[in-house]
C-alpha cells in the first residue's frame, strides 16, 4: 500500500468499515510512514472539529420576536 492508496481508504478506516485484510495492510503502511500517521491524526481532528462547529450557536440561539410574529401572521392568512 502506498500513501495514495491510504488516502483512498481513509474514511473507511476511520469509520471502521475496512475488512480485516484491508485494515491490516492499512496499519502496516501507517506503522512505517510517519507522514501518513500525521495526516491521519489531522484528518480525524478535522472531522471532530467539523462535528463540534455548530453546537454552541444552537444552544444559545433564540427566535427573534419579529420572526415569530411574521410566521404567526402568515399562518393566519
Amino acid at each position, binding site marked *: 500500500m*502506498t*500513501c*495514495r*492508496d491510504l*488516502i483512498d481508504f*481513509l*474514511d473507511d478506516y476511520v469509520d471502521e468499515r475496512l475488512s480485516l485484510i484491508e485494515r491490516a495492510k492499512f496499519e502496516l503502511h501507517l506503522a512505517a*510512514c*510517519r*507522514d*501518513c*500517521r*500525521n*495526516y491521519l*491524526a*489531522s*484528518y480525524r*481532528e*478535522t*472531522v*471532530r*472539529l*467539523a*462535528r*463540534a*462547529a*455548530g*453546537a*454552541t*450557536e*444552537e*444552544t*444559545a*440561539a*433564540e*427566535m*427573534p420576536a419579529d*420572526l*415569530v410574529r*411574521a*410566521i*404567526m401572521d*402568515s*399562518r393566519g392568512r
Partner: protein
Amino acid sequence: MAVVPSLPSQPIPEADECALLARLRVGDERAYEQLLSQYGGRLLAVARRMMGNEEDARDAVQEAMLSAFKALDRFDGKSKLSTWLHRIVVNACLMRMRAKGRRPEVSIDGLLPRFQEDGHRRDPGPVWKSLGSANPSPGSGIEGTETRRLVRANIDRLPEGYRTVLMLRDIEGLDTEQAAIALEMTPNAVKTRLHRARQALRELLDADMRLGSPKGGKAWRSAIDPSDERERP
C-alpha cells in the same frame, strides 16, 4: 423522506411534547407561539449554518414552519417533534439553495494531498498543534470558541457542493443514505464527496493548526476560484 437525528439538545421532555402536540392539533394559538419560541431558535441556527445569510435563513425557517403547521396532522410521533422540525428546516434550506440555482462546480484538487508517481507523498504529513478544548458545551474556553469560529469560516470557504455535503453529514447529523436522498445523489457519490470535502477542509485548516507554522500562512484562494466564495452576512 429522510429521517434526521435529533437536534443536539432537547428543549422539552417527551410528555410535555405530547401535550404541546395535542394543543397544536386543536389549533391552540398559544401552542404555536410556544412551539416557535421553544424550537425556533435552534432551527434558525440550523438555517443560518446552511444558508449562510440571515435573510435566506429567516425565509427558510418561515417556509419550514408554515409547512410544518400544515403537516401537523401527518406527524406520526415515531420521531421526536424536534427531529421532525429539523428535517423540515433542512429540506426547506436545500430547496431554497436549489431555487437560487446551482453554481458551476469548482475543482478542489488544489486542496487534496499530492503524490509522487510512485504513490508516495510529495509533501511531508503535518503535525498539528494541540487544539485545546473544542467542547461545544456552554462556558467552554475562548480557545474552543475561536477554534469553532475558524472551522466554521473554513467550512464556508468550501465550494457549495462540498460544503453542503459536509454540513449535512458532519454538522446536521444525517447519515449517508439520508444525505443522499436529501441531495438527490447516490450514497456512493455522497461518500466520495464527503471524503474530498473533509480533505479540503483539513488543508484549509492546516495553516492555523500546523505545529510551528505562522497563523494564516496559507491562502485558500490559490487553490479555489475566489469567485466561488459565498456571500456572508
